[in-house]
């Protein structure tokens, strides 16, 4: 249970860590969009290279970034396989019974695989270099125009912050309760499905009780510090756009423009 890397923030002080989270968030979305632009190898290599540079700038262990891709490997494999077997245009490289594997199919499959990997690695770069609270703060600021349609953005962001904050706490709590019940001989590993569900009662009930207790403690603590929602609330740490943020935005936009341009100048393989 302990090993689940939720809210996988990896503290550091790199260029990416110090970037304005709002800019970082928008640029990540732009990048996700950008990996779908290239229709030729040069452009795709460019998108991968851009990501590689970003990883280097983040000073994160490369192993960590690779680990973030691990959970999507099955998805990558399935989509690639589907493309290999279903795309029938192009020259055939392998034919047997109903299976036709073509060059076009192989190219499509590798494009899709590389795109998914870039997409996941790119977005995990955002969560690795930004703490969950900063992330929700940034989201609050980015969504603030929605106040016009009477959406309480602050409340939404506060709920997200609290939820994220308590995930590790709840995991730890579950761990403890499970150990305590196992010590009393609770059998969580054997029996049929019904028996297993019933075996969860001694874990779920205490977990609920403690969550309610925590929630009421937190509410009291917030009220003691005069929390009254988002109206007129100021921040200790103001988010500031610096020259570096504007520069990064310019670079990303330039990369996107270049990817589009490449599609015109190089013959598409897709």
């Amino acid at each position: 249970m302990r090993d689940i890397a939720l809210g996988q923030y990896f503290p550091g002080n790199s260029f990416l860590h110090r970037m304005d989270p709002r800019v970082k968030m928008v640029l990540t979305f732009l990048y996700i969009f950008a990996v779908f632009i290239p229709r030729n190898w040069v452009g795709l290599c460019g998108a991968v290279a851009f990501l590689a540079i970003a990883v280097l700038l983040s000073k994160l262990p490369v192993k960590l970034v690779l680990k973030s891709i691990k959970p999507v490997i099955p998805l990558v494999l399935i989509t690639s396989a589907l493309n290999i077997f279903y795309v029938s245009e192009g020259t055939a490289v392998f034919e047997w019974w109903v299976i036709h594997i073509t060059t076009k199919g192989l190219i499509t499959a590798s494009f899709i695989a590389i795109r998914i990997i870039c997409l996941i690695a790119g977005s995990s770069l955002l969560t690795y270099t930004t703490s969950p609270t900063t992330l929700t703060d940034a989201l609050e600021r980015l969504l603030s125009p929605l106040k016009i349609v009477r959406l309480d953005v602050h409340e939404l962001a506060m709920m997200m912050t609290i939820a994220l904050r308590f995930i590790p706490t709840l995991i730890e709590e579950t761990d403890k309760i499970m150990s305590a019940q196992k010590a009393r001989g609770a059998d969580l590993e054997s029996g049929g499905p019904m028996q297993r569900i019933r075996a969860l009662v001694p874990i779920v009930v205490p977990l609920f009780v403690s969550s309610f207790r925590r929630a009421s403690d937190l509410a009291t603590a917030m009220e003691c510090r005069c929390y009254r929602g988002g109206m007129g609330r100021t921040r200790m740490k103001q988010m500031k756009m610096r020259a570096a943020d504007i520069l990064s935005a310019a670079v990303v936009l330039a990369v996107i423009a270049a990817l589009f341009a490449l599609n015109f100048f190089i013959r598409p393989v897709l």
Partner: protein
Amino acid sequence: MPVIETQNLSHTYSPGTPFVKEAITDISVKIEKGDLLGIIGHTGSGKSTLVQHFNGLLRPTSGKVFLNGRDIWEKPKKIREVRFKVGLVFQYPEHQLFEETTYKDIAFGPSNMGLDADEIDRRVRLAARFVGLKDELLKKSPFELSGGEKRRAAIAGVMAMQPDVLILDEPTAGLDPRGRDTILGQISEYQQENGTTVVLVSHSMEDIAKTAKKVLVMKRGAVAMYGETAEVFSRAGELEAIGLAVPAVTRIFMQLRARGFEVGENAYTVRQAFERLLPLLRKGGAGGA
């Protein structure tokens, strides 16, 4: 033959990740049958990790744990039997209560053992008596009990399994002095009446001094001292060097000696201090010192 023995026991949390932490290193201890052992150490010294190996909740990274001379991990499928023989009461055990009535909650352990209804009933009532829970409380929901009662109900839940070894991790944490004395008294009584081996984990020197017959001192995941309570507390200087506050009475004795009073050995309970200081005071009164 010791009831629990560890050989070169080590445990590492989250190996192979950035959060790797070696909690205990190369621990070899023997706990004799019928002992009332206190384990003491700072937060993070590995006390809880060590005791969770005694009932097989944690599996050693290296080293072995023996229960009555048998390696508990010889047959990993039979680990539940070990948990019935070595009862572990966790820190803040009241957080594990879940049943509709206190009675049913105390019966959870014994029913997991597959005992028949009569035996379960006998054990639940016996355990409830040991921790001083009255019959009418047993019919109530455990969530209606007071903080101290909840704690005692949770302890009864483990006692009712009648384990050979009863381990309690910080059983007095967060209780007022009276609640603390009540629970410690009940634990000693239980130990004397049944001759069960009891292991008491605490960071309170006072609690250990009052209750335990033997003391194991832990420091940064290793055993710093292990011996009879009197012997360990006679090395008060070393204990303070580890950063463990010796009981207040012991400190008074050390100071008295430093000022030239012949107080003899260090006392670590108020009772002992009383017995040692009284003759001294009488003498002092006669001599006018």
